[in-house]
Structures are given as structure tokens and as C-alpha cells.
């Protein structure tokens, strides 16, 4: 309850901040629409040459693009701005203040910056998913929709956890500013369905770099070609990765308090 109220406060604060930079907000929304056009163009070029991509038709790929953008929204709305803030606070020492507040420091690090206008992205992503699914003619049931949502959340948590681990490494290395560039590079692999990649790469993408969990797999659930046991495994992966991340974070804090001056 307390954390919800805190989140509400942070959200309000961030809305105020983004209102202060009007031009910035407008330009960003326009730029974003342009990117979407570019991505759709890319897809149409692919389908001028082939009927399916790894067994996925055009509608399904548009839906996948939607899920991909959902993940991207998470990146752009929370992960990017908070990384910037985090790296800066390590450099200028204001991290000390964050740690001395009677609130979970991982929570504060996650939500102190929220790029509010990215809400448009969210809407856009959902439109893409709905339109894509309709185009593909796949049959969705309430159950498959629910699994889709669960898996998407679980996938988001996997990516979030990966992020936490990456920025927590800063506690050990002090200068690790490209922590999120790595994450973005990994994430870009999720733009196409994992079945496009050769088997060895698919294994890496699915398990070692669990980005696919956040994009392809939820969509597979929506199409109904995912067994229940695998659904449970992927949800488990989300829980475990969150657990690992919060422990790495704790260890990082310990390291910070042991070594910094």
C-alpha cells in the first residue's frame, strides 16, 4: 500500500517534469511514429519475398512487433531513464541519499524516473497486437489470452531482472556506463521470432539470454501452441530471475558499503 502511494507520487513528479519539457515530448512522440512506419516497411519487404518467416505469417509478425514494442516501452519508459539516473548517482555520490531512505532501494532505483509520454507506445503496441492477431486468423480463447498476459508479465520481469543484475554490476566496477547498451543489443534479437534463428542460437536466445521469453513465447501462448507445462516453466523462470536479481542487488549494496569512500 505504502509503495503504491509512493509510486503515485513518483508518477506525479515525473508528469510534472515532462510537462516542463514540452517540445521534447512532442518530438519524441513523432519520432516514435516514424520508427513504427520503418519497422512495418521492413516487414512488408520480407513478405514480398516469402510467405512465412519461421512458420509465422504477416499478421502474427505484426503482433510480434507489438509485443516487441511492449518490451521496448518498458525499456524506454523505465529502464533507460533510470539507468541514466543510477549511473549519475553513483558518480556524483547521491546514491548515498537513496540508500539512507527508509524505502527499498531497488524500488527507488526502478521508479524514480518514468518517461510518462511512453504511454502512447503502450497503446500503439496493443493496437499492433490486436490487429496482427486478427489478420492472422489465429483463434484466441480467454484462457490463451490470460496465459499470454501472464507470460508477457513474466517476460518483462525476466528483462527487468537482467537489467537489475547489469546495473548492480556497477557496484563492483564503478565505471560501467554501457551496462544497458548490452541489454538493448540482446533485446534487439527479439524483434523476429526465435524460430528464425538456427537451433544453437535459439537455445542461447531462449535460455541463456532470455529475451525470447518476453516476446515470442507469450505470443505462442496466444496462438495456443504452447503446452501447459512449458507455460509453468516460463512463469517459474520469471520468479527465479527476480529472486536472483534482488539477491545480486543486495550483494552489490554490501559491496558498495564495503568499498566506496
Amino acid at each position, binding site marked *: 500500500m505504502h509503495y503504491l502511494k509512493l509510486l503515485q507520487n513518483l508518477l506525479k513528479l515525473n508528469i510534472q517534469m515532462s510537462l516542463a519539457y514540452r517540445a521534447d515530448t512532442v518530438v519524441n512522440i513523432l519520432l516514435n511514429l516514424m520508427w513504427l512506419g520503418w519497422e512495418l516497411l521492413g516487414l512488408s519487404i520480407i513478405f514480398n519475398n516469402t510467405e512465412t518467416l519461421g512458420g509465422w505469417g504477416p499478421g502474427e509478425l505484426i503482433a510480434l512487433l507489438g509485443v516487441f514494442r511492449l518490451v521496448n516501452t518498458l525499456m524506454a519508459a523505465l529502464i533507460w531513464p533510470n539507468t541514466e539516473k543510477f549511473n549519475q548517482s553513483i558518480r556524483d555520490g547521491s546514491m548515498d541519499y537513496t540508500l539512507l531512505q527508509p524505502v527499498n532501494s531497488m524500488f527507488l532505483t526502478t521508479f524514480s524516473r518514468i518517461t510518462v509520454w511512453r504511454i502512447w507506445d503502450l497503446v500503439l503496441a496493443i493496437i499492433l497486437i490486436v490487429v496482427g492477431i486478427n489478420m492472422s486468423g489465429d483463434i484466441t480463447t480467454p484462457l490463451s489470452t490470460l496465459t499470454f498476459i501472464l507470460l508477457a508479465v513474466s517476460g518483462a520481469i525476466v528483462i527487468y531482472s537482467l537489467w537489475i543484475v547489469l546495473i548492480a554490476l556497477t557496484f563492483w566496477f564503478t565505471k560501467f556506463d554501457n551496462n544497458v547498451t548490452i541489454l538493448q543489443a540482446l533485446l534487439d534479437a527479439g524483434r523476429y521470432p526465435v524460430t528464425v534463428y538456427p537451433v544453437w542460437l535459439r537455445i542461447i536466445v531462449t535460455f541463456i539470454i532470455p529475451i525470447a521469453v518476453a516476446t515470442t513465447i507469450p505470443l505462442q501462448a496466444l496462438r495456443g501452441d504452447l503446452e501447459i507445462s512449458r507455460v509453468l516453466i516460463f512463469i517459474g523462470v520469471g520468479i527465479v530471475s527476480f529472486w536472483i536479481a534482488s539477491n545480486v542487488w543486495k550483494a552489490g549494496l554490501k559491496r558498495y*558499503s564495503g568499498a566506496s569512500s
Partner: protein
Amino acid sequence: MSTESIFVEQLSKTYKVPEREGGFGAAVRSFFKRKYKDVNAVQKVSFRIEPGEIVGFLGPNGAGKTTTLKMLSGLLHPTGGKANVLGFTPWELKPDYLRSMTLVMGQRNRLSWDIPAADSFLLNQAIYRLPDNEYKKTYKELDELLELEPLMKKPVRNLSLGERMKCEIAAGLLHRPKVLFLDEPTIGLDITGQARIREFLREYNRRTGATILLTSHYMADVTALCERIIIIHHGNLKYDGGINDLSRRIAPFKLIGIRLSEADSHDLSGYGSEVQNEEDAEKRYIRVRADEVTRVTSRLLADLPIHDITIADPPIEDVIERAFNE
């Protein structure tokens, strides 16, 4: 259960610092194999502070002041020793502890630059779970003492350094902490700015009975606020006691000031070492050991055409300076 606010025993902190020689070759070698050097930032420091005390924590740069404050606030784990603040072990970072203390660092910003301080204050209210009426009461009090209201609506980046510091300090006090750790709270401020913060701290301490441990490079801060000082140097405790006793213990000297009725050409070196004093050009000052003051004074009176004579303690700044250099 002890009664003191702050209890420190044999507290020590050793850092491992990577070390290498200058030059390209050394840089490459150290990339593969790091050498570390132990730096003893704080060595077996012990003291206790009673509730409501204002204690000045002094020492030259690198003496270990900030390290000690960071350990006491809970940011750093010590390598040895114990500390207890308000019954808590600081580095366990218990929320109840964090709600009853504050750390204000003059060189670091707590407030967000892009938004008015008022908004950051509200966030703090949420973080510390302060009920509305309590928050408003505290804010009103702080406003009364620091005249915050005109500063609250402007983005923090548009405030002057002095104005920002007022807001920073207020932000650190909204939750009515019982213990204040202040690291250079007046750094960079002009004389009036310093005086205002000082006045505020004294009044705050009087009203709330909060315990304050403060470091500062401005001796005026210390002499105005603290009856007691703790001096550390190279991580070791050098002095802990009354500020007035310091001159007796560390530098038992007095300053004799004389004004001569004739031209000032007399050589005073036979009486004691002469000290420069720009504020009072008409007088000449000599530093004399305390137990020789009477003898030297009577000699001066006998030997020279003296118009006026004063005997005083040396300024505390000089005394502390000497204490550092010993």
C-alpha cells in the same frame, strides 16, 4: 540500554585501494594484475555523545571525518569496532533507524534539479510516511527559521547556492530526525549564508533537542555552535573535549597586545614570537607561553613606553590549526 545518543568504540575502517605506478607499461600491467594497498582511513576511534549535544568533528582533509560519518549513518561497514546510534547498529540500515537520523552532505544534492523543492518535499513526505498534519507542522517550523516559502516554487536549478543549501537542509529534517550528521553544511556559502545556517542549527537544536555531529572547514561554524570538539588526524583521535580547554591542552599560549606611545621601531623578539594581525594594525602582538605571561608583561612594562596592553587567548582557529599540525 545506554543513555547516550552516539556510542563509538574502537571503530576502524581500512580501504583497499588499487595502486600502480605512472606510465603506459604500468597501466597495462595493472589491467591484468592489480596491486592493492591498504589505507587506514579510521583507526580505533572511540567516543560517546549525549543526547542534545552539538559536537564539532574536525580534522584536515583526508583525516577520516567523512568516513566516520558514513559509518555512523550506515553507508559503510567498518572493518572493526562497534558503533551504536540511538540503540541501533547503523550499517544494518533498519528502517526505524533511517527514520530517526539524517545525513546532510554540503557537496551532494538530494533534491532533483528540474523540479521545485516543494515537489521533492512531498516525495519525502511519502517516503517517510509522514501524516499530513505532522508534515505541515514541521514544514511551518522550518519555514519560520529558514524562510523557505519564496524558494519552494522555483526549480532547484534556479536557486542560488545559499538558497539551495537551505532547501537541502530542510529536506533532510522533514522527518524530525533525532540525530543529525552534517558534513560541511556551509561549504561554499558566503559569510551571511554561513551565519544563517549556523543560527538555524543552534535554534533547531534548542527547540528539538536533536544531537548534532558536524564537520566544517569554517572554524566560525565550530566556535559558534560547539562546546565540544573531536579532532582526528590520519584516522586517529587526537582530542576530545571542551573547545575552551583545547587551547590549554594543545597550545598553552597567550597573546599579549601592546600599543607603544612612540614610533614602532622596538625589537620585540626578546620577549616572545611576534604575530601578524591585520585587523588591528596599531597594536603589535607577541605569543607567550601561558606560565610566562606575568614575567614577560612586567618586563614589557618596565622596558618600553607602553600606552596600552592587553592579554588574551589566541583565536581558536590558530589553536586548532596547531593541533592539526602537531
